[in-house]
């Protein structure tokens, strides 16, 4: 995470993007101890709101959420054509992606040329995008906006992320149902009462062995030590041991089933190789979260064929193309959606970069995607929100279409997944 540095360009000495008084910005991850708002273990583990079971039946669909942390510049990735491109070029004389270099896309948009590895999927209709998407109100703080996106429950004081609410609908959910790969720390979206698992690599999903170097003996030993502990911690330890036992065959074969060399070198290589192996193993995983950071391009965004943005997109596109290849037959049940906490300012700054902005693009790939075009409403660059691309659809509308399309069992539970939210129709899924 790289928080923004203030830019003194306006002479006020104030950091850019400070919300003004009228905005009345609310922080969405509220306190644990706000008045009577303490979440007790009992409240945290109240099963009453779990409504449906879509559990670990084999061959279930999987949604992979790739978080482009740092605020990706959607206007360099999914670039408007025509009059909007003229406006963009005027605002970004040093860094705009020239219209002539765009690939794929549709009549109104083209893709950054570094998306070339994914062009076959675009042309096949399994890679698409939604533009002018974001939070319901601008929030130009990395921290707050990320929390807002991942909690996705404005005004709630519970620390329950939207993915946790999704998997929590299934009373029989197991930790392997919702997995963060690449890090053992759960992102905000996974935090909550439903079981979830954060792990760097598949092979870490085992209990560390001791004498005899035997995982089964070790699980039995830990099970005996914790057998009489009737607390939520005790339950979680036992669930963890059960998960480790179920995944033992996958962990044992990790060296064979995880194929990092099939991916381009870079931060997504290991994590997507592990994600593919976990999905192919078909152990009941429904949601996977993956982080791909380094998008905070306040300076030196670069040119279409080289530099920061080109490198970032080249790796993203190459790694995702490799991922769908690596999935093999399992690709037919996997959908990828990208999300970032905010887009960037339309106007380039004095350092050939772009400061924090608002509206952004989301990318969708794989099963069920209505690809080959940019879906939803477009906000045009002659109608900006305080210098930023405005939004025409709430990010939750896109996520809800993905969930409802891939998990029909969940489609009746919008009020639990996104409380109080009325989604717009975007058309991101077919």
């Amino acid at each position: 995470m790289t928080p923004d540095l203030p830019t003194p360009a306006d002479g006020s000495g104030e950091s850019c993007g400070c919300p003004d008084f009228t905005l009345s910005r609310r922080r969405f991850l509220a306190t644990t101890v706000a008045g009577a708002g303490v979440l007790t273990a009992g409240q945290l583990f109240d099963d009453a709101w779990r409504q449906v079971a879509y559990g670990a039946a084999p061959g279930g669909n999987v949604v992979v959420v790739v978080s482009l942390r740092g605020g990706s510049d959607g206007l360099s990735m999914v670039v408007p054509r025509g009059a909007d491109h003229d406006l963009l070029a005027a605002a970004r004389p040093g860094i705009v992606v020239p219209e002539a270099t765009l690939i794929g896309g549709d009549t109104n948009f083209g893709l950054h040329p570094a998306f070339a590895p994914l062009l076959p999927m675009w042309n096949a209709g399994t890679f698409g995008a939604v533009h002018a998407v974001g939070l319901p109100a601008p929030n130009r703080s990395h921290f707050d906006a990320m929390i807002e996106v991942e909690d996705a429950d404005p005004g709630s004081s519970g620390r329950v992320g939207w993915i946790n609410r999704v998997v929590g609908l299934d009373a029989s959910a197991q930790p392997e149902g919702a997995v963060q790969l690449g890090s053992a720390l759960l992102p905000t979206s996974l935090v909550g009462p439903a079981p979830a698992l954060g792990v760097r690599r598949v092979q870490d999903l085992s209990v560390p062995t001791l004498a005899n170097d035997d995982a089964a003996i070790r699980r039995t030993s830990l099970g005996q030590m914790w057998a009489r502990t009737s607390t939520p911690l005790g339950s979680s330890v036992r669930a963890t041991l059960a998960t480790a036992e179920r995944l033992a065959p996958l962990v044992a074969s990790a060296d064979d089933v995880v194929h990092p060399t099939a991916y381009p070198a870079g931060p997504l290589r290991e994590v997507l190789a592990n994600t593919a192996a976990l999905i192919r193993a078909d152990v009941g995983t429904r949601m996977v979260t993956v982080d791909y950071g380094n998008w905070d391009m306040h300076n030196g965004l670069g040119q279409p064929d080289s530099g920061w943005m080109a490198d970032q997109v080249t790796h993203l596109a190459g790694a995702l193309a490799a991922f769908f290849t690596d999935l093999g037959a399992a690709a037919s049940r996997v959908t990828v959606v990208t999300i970032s906490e905010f887009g960037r300012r339309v106007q380039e700054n004095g350092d050939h970069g772009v400061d924090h902005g608002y509206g952004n693009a989301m990318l969708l790939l794989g099963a069920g995607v209505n690809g080959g075009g940019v879906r939803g409403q477009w906000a045009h660059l002659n109608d900006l929100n305080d210098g930023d691309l405005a939004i025409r659809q709430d990010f939750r509308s896109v996520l809800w279409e993905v969930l409802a399309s891939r998990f029909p069992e969940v489609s009746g539970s919008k009020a639990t997944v996104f409380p109080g939210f009325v989604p717009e129709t975007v058309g991101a899924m077919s």
Partner: protein
Amino acid sequence: MSPAAPAASTAVLPRAGRHFARRFSGGITPTLASQITRAGGGRRWFSQQLYPARVTDTKGDQVNTWFPSLKLTPAQIFQREQDDVQGSWDVMADLSRWTVCRRIHSTRQVQELMVEFWSNLLHVPLGDDLAAYHRVSYDRMIRTYALTSFERLLLHATTHPAMGLFLDNATSSKQAPNENLGRELLELHTVGVDAGYTETDVKSSSRILTGYRSDVWWPAFQTFYDPSWHWTGPIRVMGFQHANSNADGRAATTAYLKYLAHHPATANRIARRLCVRFVSDTPSAGLVATVARAYRRNNTAVRPTLLAMVDHPEFLASAGAKVRTPLDDYVATVRALGISLGKPVDGDSFANAMHWHYRDAGQAPFDWPAPNGFPEVNGAWISSGRILNSLEVHRTLAFGWWPRDEAVFRKPAALLPALPATLEAVIDHVAVKVIGQAPSAAVSQGIATALGWSLSRRVTAEEAQRYWTLPTIVVSLLDSPHHLTR
């Protein structure tokens, strides 16, 4: 539990003393156990701890000399970053290390825990790039007032440049007030979100606070009160009113913060939060009321408030009710293993390398991005990933795999009883030194299973000295409910 008392040279503390040790220290050790015994029990040890200046702290004093960057002024930290000498993020890593070293080695354990408690309530993240230059100074301030009164803590924290830069009050002016700190002051630091204040109150709260400027890049690195930025005019927030007619609004701010510190809703929130951290996730209304009453009757003073909490019967009845957070666990594990850290010399030194170890395992001090601080309820800390991480940390530290430089590990012989002895006796003997008590029968059986031996087996010296034997016992104890709860 074995029927006979373990044949250990270290006395096992009585239940109450053990509970004070586990709740108000980084973890029980033989040294702490004897300090509590010498003090005349847990309650007496605790009341001595409330006056840290009177507690000799030889190792803590040594630790204070290990991280020279923490002696730099905010301006020096900024300048050294500009000169490419040392980034502020390096200083922040040192603050994290020094904090953990003190939690491991200081004799002033209650002070360390109260610094953690107030830092988490009046939270300024380790990772905030703007606040970073002032974060060490902020920590020093918290330490100074940690055992005095909440009124003093609140006055100094709210007007500190670290808080001002983190929550945008440093750039909030009468022309463009920023409501970030004004809101969190009410919601997080004092009365709480359901205290009945309005959006108008939030705006007024923000206006009172205008004037406390802190600049980083432009026009210069400076912190000062700027009357020309202060919003003047009558102010009303909840029951607080002030003419606020002076361009120097510091007196108005002080009056406002005092009002908030003494507000009954603040008393209830502080009381509840103390109880959640030190008693249980579900403190009774009676306990919270008792603690809140002590807080109000003593003008927000910390010491009588804490004493009211530990003197309530619910405190002693809550043994084992709290889950150790990953950082609690790391500190307690190093203490349980008797690892003595030395002055770091390079990145591989334990006191330096451990920052990455505990951070990757889930938690470094103050390293929570949002203004609400780390969660303090059990439910946040019991995920499968967290559990597997803790198991791995226990094994890595107990075997002395990494980090290991500039650290003295306890010799295995210091843990073992006279041999041969039954496995059960060996486990009990080791456990008293590692977790301060003999384990439950279930834990002993689990350890026997891990070793593949029966509890009645006679363990010879040769068997006990095999590579895996003793660490299997020690790691299992650390992986047990005895160690993962407090």
